[in-house]
């Protein structure tokens, strides 16, 4: 099926959503998504940040769709024409969506452990307005400990339901879900019941904001002072391929590896995540790829060894530093 997004045409198989098609083209046309997660079935459709304008429904029915549609839940039709960043209407609408997402979100980024890798921060920075117009008291909840390793700040939650889907699909025996409805909805473990499943820690990785955070990493360091490296170990529960966040020789935390859409490659088990906090536990492969636009790329030299070799080669070619011929 042929679909055109922001003027770029692509051929995709039947059943592909607009969001997936846009991601196939690349980040220059892909709409942001806060709740959709490729690896979680039935996710998406809650946050409305991925709205796009369909200016032509299909070749058979070239009428435009009357309202912006959620691209994560809308399948492409043959000959569909979609506008995302090229439509000022959509940018305006997305700005409104961001404002609504931020209505109850506290401005506690200086305290929050997610700061620096928070999708809502990025979204607000790219699409939001500088000032808030909201003047009322924000929704507040007490902090909840989900087990002894996960902390839930309901105040920061944007109700994307990703964590609920993880518990439903990755772990067995769900003890964690959402209670109440609408504005009063909240993520809960049904009276603080701990999640004891081996894969429960993945709710931390899927959370786009700082609502679910790792208690073993709580207030240890800001993410941009730590150095992410790809590492692996032999694990009989999961693939064992993780991202280890180092400060000096200390392992501050372990997360799953994430792709450019901030989605994990493979879910990892709690053993790898919480119980292996020594550098000797891991076989380090090399520095992780971090986007140049991220604050985490501060002092992060991915290709340092290559650069060193290159410089050495150049110096040799110019005749400086004849290391080989030194007596």
């Amino acid at each position: 099926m042929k679909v055109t997004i922001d003027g770029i045409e692509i051929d995709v198989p039947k059943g592909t959503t607009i969001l997936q098609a846009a991601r196939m083209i690349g980040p220059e046309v892909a709409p942001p998504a806060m709740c959709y997660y490729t690896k979680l079935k039935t996710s998406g459709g809650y946050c409305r940040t991925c709205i796009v304008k369909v200016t032509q429904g299909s070749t058979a029915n070239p009428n435009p769709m009357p309202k912006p549609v959620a691209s994560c839940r809308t399948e492409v039709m043959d000959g569909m024409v979609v506008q995302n960043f090229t439509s000022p209407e959509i940018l305006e609408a997305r700005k409104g969506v961001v404002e609504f997402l931020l209505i109850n979100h506290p401005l506690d980024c200086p305290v929050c452990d997610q700061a620096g890798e928070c999708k809502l921060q990025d979204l607000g920075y790219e699409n939001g307005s500088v000032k808030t117009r909201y003047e009322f008291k924000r929704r507040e909840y007490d902090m909840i400990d989900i087990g002894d390793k996960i902390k839930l700040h309901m105040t920061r939650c944007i109700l994307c339901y990703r964590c609920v889907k993880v518990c439903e699909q990755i772990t067995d025996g769900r003890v964690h879900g959402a209670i109440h409805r609408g504005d009063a909805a909240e993520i809960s473990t049904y009276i603080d019941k701990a999640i004891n499943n081996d894969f429960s820690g993945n709710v931390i990785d899927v959370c786009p904001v700082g609502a679910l955070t790792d208690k073993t990493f709580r207030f240890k360091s800001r993410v941009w002072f730590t150095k992410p490296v790809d590492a692996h170990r032999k694990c009989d529960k999961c693939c064992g391929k993780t991202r280890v966040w180092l400060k000096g020789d200390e392992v501050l935390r372990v997360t799953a590896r994430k792709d450019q859409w901030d989605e994990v490659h493979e879910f990892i088990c709690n053993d790898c995540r919480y119980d292996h906090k020594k550098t000797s536990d891991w076989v380090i492969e090399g520095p992780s790829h971090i986007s140049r636009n991220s604050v985490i790329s501060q002092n992060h030299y991915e290709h340092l060894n290559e650069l060193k070799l290159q410089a050495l080669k150049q110096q040799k070619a110019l005749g400086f530093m004849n290391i080989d011929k030194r007596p």
Partner: protein
Amino acid sequence: MALQLTNRSKVVSNKEQSVSEKLYLPGIIKGMSITLSHLFKRRATVKYPDEQRPRAEVYRGQHVLKRDDNGAERCTACGLCAVACPAEAITMESAERKKGEENLYREEKYAKTYEINMLRCIFCGLCEEACPKEAIFLTDRIVDTEFERDDFVYGKDKLVEKTDKRIDVSKRQTLEVAAFKKLPGLKHNTMWDGKKQIKDKH
């Protein structure tokens, strides 16, 4: 001939001196009159530290970590000053506030240690600009001299202002900053118990 850089160089000659030049007196008088005239001119120096030159209100000198009006430390160890610092002079460690420490630290996270290496610091003021909590300010105080290099690493004991000796930084806060601070709904405008709006003077 050597390389000539300017055309002001004088060629030395062995020409015999004239009578007036042999007397040396006109030369001495000319020199002394220049010296004498300087006695009656305004002095270029001041007798520091007894006397001090006036400094601008926004002079960038030694830093201060402010407390709020209740005496609680404003710094929440967010690390933005350290990441903004071009000289990498700032380091910190954070810790979680315990129950009963609400009067000491304003937010649930605080700086357990906070160090500025004054030898590294270039006093650019970017930390002040980056601070989201109005915690760090540069002041018009001059950093003391020390004998040991280690003594230039200022910890919280030297940086945090004393409750009985507040440091006024109101001059450093622009109208925009003041307007932003008064926005309702901002967490740092409410007290730690989240009830009353405080009026911050400093």
